[in-house]
């Protein structure tokens, strides 16, 4: 009986390690939140050294959570538009919360000190948080920067209402004729369904 137990144990370990190897060799990218999921709150350090959580925003109706960073040309191309979103929607209850998900060991430009520098240079009007230890972005399923999650605050928690790009032209804001995030927030403010819930975009891989 004891031998059987050991055998079963060994088989179990082999099965687990086979699974683990499989996981390593082909990482699944599409894990993370789907539309309608409850998004986790967090407690992350802001560039002013204060700790920020979504729960701190008592008056907010929701959030525009944007995974972004310093080093990525696509993120840089969207900086002014991210500031624009915050200016437009913070007063309406949907502030921008920017999170840098990158490990500064891989990308020194994305260090906490360099975040402070960049935020000051560009005059960020929103918190720019550091995902220290890279714990939060995998829960959201963010794969690249910039990667946006529009959340609606409800009695059940902060529900994911939109995932994807800011608009449909990373090069030129004035040529963008689909403003996905604006459209999503405007719909939520009117109590309507978000017209386009998921979009895809090229961005800088978060995983280094």
């Amino acid at each position, binding site marked *: 009986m004891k031998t059987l137990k050991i055998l079963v144990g060994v088989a179990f370990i082999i099965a687990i390690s086979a699974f683990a190897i499989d996981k390593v*060799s*082909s*990482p699944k*990218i*599409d894990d993370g939140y789907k539309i309608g999921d409850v998004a986790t709150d967090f407690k992350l350090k802001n560039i002013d050294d204060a700790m920020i959580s979504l729960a701190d925003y008592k008056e907010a109706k929701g959030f525009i959570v944007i995974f972004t960073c310093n*080093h*990525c*040309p696509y993120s840089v*191309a969207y900086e002014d538009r991210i500031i624009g979103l915050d200016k437009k929607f913070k007063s309406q209850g949907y502030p921008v919360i920017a999170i840098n998900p990158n490990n500064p060991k*891989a*990308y020194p430009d994305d260090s906490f000190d360099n975040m402070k520098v960049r935020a000051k240079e560009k005059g960020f009007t929103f918190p720019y948080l550091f995902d220290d230890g890279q714990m939060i972005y995998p829960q959201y399923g963010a*794969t*690249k920067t910039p990667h946006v999650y529009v959340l609606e605050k409800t009695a059940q928690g902060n529900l994911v209402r939109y995932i*994807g*790009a800011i608009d*449909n*032209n*990373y*090069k*030129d804001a004035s*040529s*963008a004729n*689909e403003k*996905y995030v604006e459209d999503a927030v405007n719909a939520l403010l009117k109590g309507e369904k978000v017209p386009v819930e998921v*979009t*895809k*975009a*090229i*961005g*800088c*891989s*978060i*995983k*280094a």
Partner: protein
Amino acid sequence: MPKRLIYIGLIIFFAGCKGEQKVALEASEVFASKGVEIPMYDFESFKPLLNINDGKTRIINFWATWCKPCVAELPYFELINSRYPKDEVEVILVSLDLPKHVESKLIPFIQRQNIQSRVLLLDDPDANSWIPKVNSEWSGSIPATIIYKGGTSNFYERSFTYNELEKELKKIL
């Protein structure tokens, strides 16, 4: 100031090994400096490259100079390109660098690394419309790679080691 040549409507022909099929891609612009030429395409003009049926296996790698894991795996693609006969395997490196960085970043990189595989620039800002046309599973993060021959095509949103890449190539070859 690097020399920039613009050939609007430049047509590049490349024939299959048996000359059975010709695919013409129309570049919207060609960047040329330091002896390196990079044609630029929007998705519509790039698309035929994903569907050439001439018996050759093509490895199409989406990358950019700012993408660390992409740059890390480029030597493996280069090695495949040099080790396999030209009429059997073609490696195509599709850069997603911004056009304004081609002369300041992409071309110097290609020169410095002495990249021998074919490099082209895909510049189509409406990514949400074309990413799913490359592959419905693609989230848009890079590196991403397609290996195809005729109607058989595999897509990978991941990084490779040399052995992993060669293993996947042999599945199609």
